[in-house]
């Protein structure tokens, strides 16, 4: 008895601890699990905004923004020949009503061009009340998901109020929540009743042991009666006739039915927004200081614009390193994207028009670790990529460059 008390006590304590300790719901989508070089050098998101983060069932919310498809696309990741701009949700708590790429509506998958610039907008409609962490993200065929910046959305109202009607090409208004359900149940019941009748016809008589004994005794002819054969013949003829008749009726009922659509959308990139040729930036060297959690990038800037420019921001994998001394670079957060003031430039003098200058900037913050981006130095492909934002001194005009370089770790 004494020996039983201890394990029981431990078990009870363990169960009690499970109830007592708070276990928060998971709200991430595994984005940090994806290799850093894929997050940094495939889809480079920027200017992502949500129209609102609090709305009701049946009300719409939109997420819009831009992305650059990195020129330095990792060799181990298949080229983006089939991609799908998706929304990460815990099930269809919202429905997607509209989606635009470069102003064009699109519903299928799309091929993206490395080096291309795109702007997107997705319109969503609240379906189930609750508070959800939602990301726009790209599904890349054979590569995985590249998350954009997420946001917490709060949907109020009642789930029962949700409605979603669509007009067919013939003008019929259908309720997407219920359309075809009653009809489906009817046909399942119809065939289910016939199948049950067939099963009951056999199950009503002695089955396994009795029939096995008779079969072994050579009384097979007694196991299948004339009526059995008659019914089987009726099934053999009647069922196909019914199937074909119902099929013909349905073909006549929906003569304009079409196959599922499987086209790949082709949408060309915008005129260059990133690496547009006015201010060119070339990454010469990159070092990651492990102890200081700092990425040191040496770059060469070639300013071909009419005004002096300064570096204001370096952005990679939805982490924004801002120069706090430059007002134009003050960042409007992309949902819950991480913004840090950890950008230091060795030479803060503006790069004059026509000037070429080599600069070194440091992006330092603990987010290299917390976002699991520092894993880059232990990866098979240890090249960093990101967007460098430069600002015109005079008008605050923004120039964006997509840069990349191999990273050398420094351990001291």
């Amino acid at each position, binding site marked *: 008895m004494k020996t039983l008390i201890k394990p029981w006590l431990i078990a009870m304590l363990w169960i009690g601890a499970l109830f007592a300790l708070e276990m928060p719901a998971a709200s991430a989508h595994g984005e940090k699990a994806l290799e850093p070089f894929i997050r940094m050098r495939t889809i480079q998101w920027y200017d992502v905004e949500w129209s609102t983060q609090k709305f009701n069932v049946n009300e719409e919310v939109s997420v819009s923004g831009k992305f650059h498809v990195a020129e330095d696309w990792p060799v181990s990741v298949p080229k983006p020949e089939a991609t799908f701009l998706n929304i990460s949700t815990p099930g269809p708590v919202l429905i997607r009503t509209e989606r635009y790429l470069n102003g064009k509506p699109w519903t299928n*998958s799309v091929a993206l061009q490395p080096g291309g610039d795109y702007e997107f907008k997705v319109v969503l409609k609240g379906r189930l009340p609750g508070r959800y962490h939602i990301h726009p993200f790209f599904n890349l065929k054979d590569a995985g998901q590249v998350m954009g910046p997420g946001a917490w959305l709060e949907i109020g109202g009642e789930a029962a109020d949700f409605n979603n009607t669509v007009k067919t090409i013939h003008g019929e208004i259908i309720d997407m929540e219920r359309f075809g359900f009653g009809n489906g149940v009817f046909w399942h019941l119809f065939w289910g009743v016939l199948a049950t009748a067939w099963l009951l016809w056999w199950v009503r008589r002695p089955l396994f042991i009795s029939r096995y004994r008779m079969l072994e005794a050579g009384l097979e002819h007694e196991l299948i009666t004339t009526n059995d054969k008659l019914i089987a013949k009726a099934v053999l003829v009647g069922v196909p006739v019914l199937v074909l008749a119902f099929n013909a009726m349905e073909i006549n009922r929906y003569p304009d039915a079409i196959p599922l659509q499987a086209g790949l959308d082709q949408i060309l990139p915008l005129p260059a927004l990133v690496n547009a040729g006015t201010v060119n930036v070339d990454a010469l060297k990159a070092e990651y200081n492990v102890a200081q959690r700092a990425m040191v990038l040496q770059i060469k800037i070639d300013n071909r614009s009419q005004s002096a420019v300064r570096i204001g921001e370096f952005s990679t994998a939805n982490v924004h390193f801002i120069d706090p001394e430059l007002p134009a670079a003050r960042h409007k957060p992309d949902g819950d994207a991480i913004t840090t003031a950890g950008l230091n430039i060795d030479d803060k003098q503006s790069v004059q028009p026509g000037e070429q200058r080599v600069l070194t900037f440091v992006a330092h913050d603990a987010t290299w670790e917390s976002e699991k981006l520092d894993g880059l130095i232990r990866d098979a492909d240890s090249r960093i990529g990101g967007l460098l934002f430069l600002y015109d001194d005079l008008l605050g005009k923004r120039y964006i460059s997509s840069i990349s370089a191999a990273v050398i770790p420094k351990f001291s």
Partner: protein
Amino acid sequence: MSAQIPIASFKPYRGEKARLARAYDYLILVLALFLFIGSFHLHFALTVGDWDFWVDWKDRQWWPLVTPLMGITFPAAVQAVLWDKFRLPLGATLCVAALLIGTWITRIFAYHYWNFFPINMVLPATMLPGAMVLDAMLMLSNSLTITAIFGGAAFALLFYPSNWPIFAMFHQPVEYANSQLTVADLFGFQYIRTGMPEYLRIIERGTLRTYGQYAAPLAAFCSALLCSLMYVLWWYIGKWFATVRYLAKI
């Protein structure tokens, strides 16, 4: 070695023996029902999977090819047991009915209530007409060859037409986002599946092309040929399971 019973000495069970044999029937039937609900449903979900889960995966090429081909497996194996040992021609119908029970339970509770998908987006297909014909064919022919060729073919050929009354309405065209979609495609676009981008659908892919824009009949006949072969394979798998080697006396 099985339990041979000479005709001369055969006596049907009566009284308590008959009652116990009948109780055993019901016990086996209930167990078989749960076994097939679980195992066939798992097999079907792993092999046919998305083609049966989603209304926007039920295309005219791969759906009628893959579904009967994977669907005839358990029916063939169970028929081998029930017909060979008991002359019961209900193996296919029993299996498919069990599959549908499991499927409906999953669609309602896992897909609709748990993951919020509209139930009409995840309507299952039916293979019951083909299963009944397969059972009737086996019973009337009492031949593995004839059942495999004609029954297996019928199982595949009847699949698409028996499901068209359920799914034709989802193939009505809709003008949406400057393009023509089916209602089924629109379900896939509107009701967000985070883990399933559109390009993942295996529809209208590969060299299984159309003839004069007819695709479903080609896929169905291709499936019919493959089903005949698959039937034989799974018949022998069923037969291998149904050994009476250890049954000395009954």
